[in-house]
């Protein structure tokens, strides 16, 4: 079959503002949208810029807006989306070229929440013990691939780019509820600040957008509860 795509293009070396360009490429219905984009890039228009690597939804490279929703291009099949498939870069981050956005502001917020295990005690000669139940408490948030789909679909983030955003909250959650970590209080202080967790208005766009099906709103709810009751 033929697939029609409508892609938002922007090349800072040539364009003052973005413009739309249409392409038609052959594809199987079960092909990924990424396959269609690479077909364009390989055979029709080598100037199209996008990021990709794993091609099966685990590296977080190819998040973009597909028919107005944040999706991974490699995890969205052509047959499941209406044509012409409208493709745009993620919203709320500066565009470098075409579908490539500058992720640095996103990763800067990621680093703010201390995304690493803090524990300066001498570790045991073998592993730290952790029960299956303790491990399960933060399982969901370990799945995050930092694709930025959630944060860039969040209206609170669109109106206030200082907001830490759902992805950083997910990362904070992953450590706050890990029995081995010792910096929960410190992280909760960070999240309690002005641009932290209280900016979340429970709009659920992030849950919709997350390709790893992380229940982000639930994780944020647990953080809010931990702040209110001072228990984690």
């Amino acid at each position: 079959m033929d697939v029609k795509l409508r892609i938002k293009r922007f090349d800072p070396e040539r364009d003052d503002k973005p413009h739309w360009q249409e392409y038609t490429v052959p594809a199987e219905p079960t092909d990924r949208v990424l396959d269609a984009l690479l077909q364009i890039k390989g055979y029709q228009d080598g100037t199209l810029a996008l990021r990709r690597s794993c091609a099966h939804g685990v590296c977080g490279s190819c998040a973009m807006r597909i028919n107005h929703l944040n999706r991974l291009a490699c995890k969205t099949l052509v047959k499941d989306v209406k044509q012409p498939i409208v493709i745009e870069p993620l919203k709320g981050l500066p565009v470098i070229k075409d579908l490539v956005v500058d992720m640095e502001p996103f990763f800067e917020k990621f680093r703010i929440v201390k995304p690493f295990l803090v524990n300066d005690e001498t570790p045991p000669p073998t592993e730290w013990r952790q029960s299956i139940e303790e491990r399960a408490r933060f399982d969901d948030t370990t799945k995050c691939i930092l694709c930025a789909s959630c944060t860039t679909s969040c209206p609170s983030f669109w109106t206030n780019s200082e907001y830490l955003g759902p992805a950083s909250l997910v990362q904070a959650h992953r450590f706050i509820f890990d029995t081995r970590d010792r910096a929960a209080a410190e992280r909760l202080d960070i999240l309690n600040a002005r641009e932290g967790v209280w900016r979340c208005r429970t709009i659920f766009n992030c849950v919709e957008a997350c390709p790893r099906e992380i229940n982000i709103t639930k994780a944020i709810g647990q953080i809010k509860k931990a702040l209110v009751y001072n228990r984690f």
Partner: protein
Amino acid sequence: MYHNYDAVVIGGGGAGLMSAIQLSPKGSTAVLSKLHPMRSHTGAAQGGIGAALGNLEEDLWEWHMFDTVKGGDYLVDQDAAEIMAQDAIEAVYDLEHWGLPFDRTADGKIAQRPFGGHTRDYGKGIVRRACYAADRTGHMILQTLYQRAIRNRVDFFDEFQVVDICIEGGACHGVVAYEIATGELHTFRAKAVIVATGGFGRMFRVTSNAYSFTGDGQAMVYRKGLPLEDMEFFQFHPTGIRKMGILITEAVRGEGGILVNGQGERFMERYSPNLLDLAPRDVVSRAIHKEVLAGRGIDGKEYVHLDASHLGRDVVATKLPDIQDFCRTYLGIDPAVDPIPVEPTAHYAMGGIPTDVDGQVLADETNRPVPGFYAAGECACVSVHGANRLGSNSLLELMVFGRRAGRHMAEHIVQTDFLELKTGPEERMREELDRLLAGTGSENAAGLRKELREVMMNKVGVLREQKTLDEAVEAVRELKDRYRNVGLQDKGRTFNMELLVALELGYLLDLAEVTALSAAARHESRGAHTREDYPDRDDENWLKHTLAFRTDGGVTLKYKPVNVSFFEPKPRTY
């Protein structure tokens, strides 16, 4: 632009990050990665990391070492295998102490599962040795290492693609990198450099490897006149999703899944009566090929079924959630109910840049090290995988040898000074890139790549013979000729991936030639290298490593001995 660092790490995957974590407390350390480190392919690893912790049943590192040597069909350097099996235990505990969220046993220890070829008591039966975090172990390792590196304040240069390594006077002095966002060239002067750029499965049509797996490090090293070792040994993983190649981890069989042919038979009973579906990968991939050739594929076609439907919804949902997700997304099926259509998928390069057990790159068949120059991970060949890697041993190799290399580099940088670089090492690269950019030739890079992948899949695949291997060498050389005539549309400097993809195609072509030629020369069957015209292993003539050098006349092959200091080569049955 110029930068000075004590150490430069090329690659932000498991091996690169591990070495950077060792280095950063000892000297200024820069990690240069063409992908943001979190996008590295280590994150795609699913099933587990091997270590004889013995958390669920008795296990010894000596058994692990033996399995590794036998699994590699005795082409493994046994001193390296000894170090790996022994250091594995500490490496896994380190990861746990840094926060890796392993699954847990009922008593709160790291959970372990069976993996192909891992046995108790020197082959008596399957042992649970692979430590895991659901079916995203690699993702968790990559996250944990990246987190640790951030904590250690490593300097990251994300989306910097290294395009040249500066080797002068027999030592390494730095690298040249291309900043993808701006098209600017940067020179990094360093006392020590480590290559940790991953594999090159992208030269095959069906592969589990990411688009970025184009063998950059191996090719750059080869172009410096340094050798590549055992390149004919490329692993085909038996269970890739049909046609797409997306990996279905061995853990599915570790949890009890079985392979079934078109007649509903559990055919591994015929090929490996002892280990069955958990035989090493070369054995299982060959078995699938033979079933297909005998017309016993599903509906007589080129694939078989991997059946996990008897494991129960709970096991599938909790232990194999990503596999379930892949099957739903790409096949529209649920592995808890339906069998998964699978075929062998090009997966892992056993060969690569020769190193010693401290990661030092070796320049020749006498094992002469290149001062200040290191390699680790899939791009390197120590060689712990020999002719066939066992599952869960790659993640392990990244940890053990990434760490050893990092430590050796840390010593090296305090003992040496910066070496003078000839002026303008970027000049040569600027010229090469400008030439590629200016290209108005009629050849299309995507088309050439497609042809290359067909040739390698069809002629240098699971089953090989002289005629098709020779044809492959010829075909690749023709493609190389045509490559000189590649034309690009994108002439810009901002995120010009067309340029970089063309550069990477050049790497793949070089490595494909070496792979096919090394395979054509090896007249025996060993591990993943199966010759229909030479069906047996031939220790008398071929118990040796291949070294391929680039010379004016093309490729020159030399050989060097294997370290067999512990286990004497024996016939390999499972």
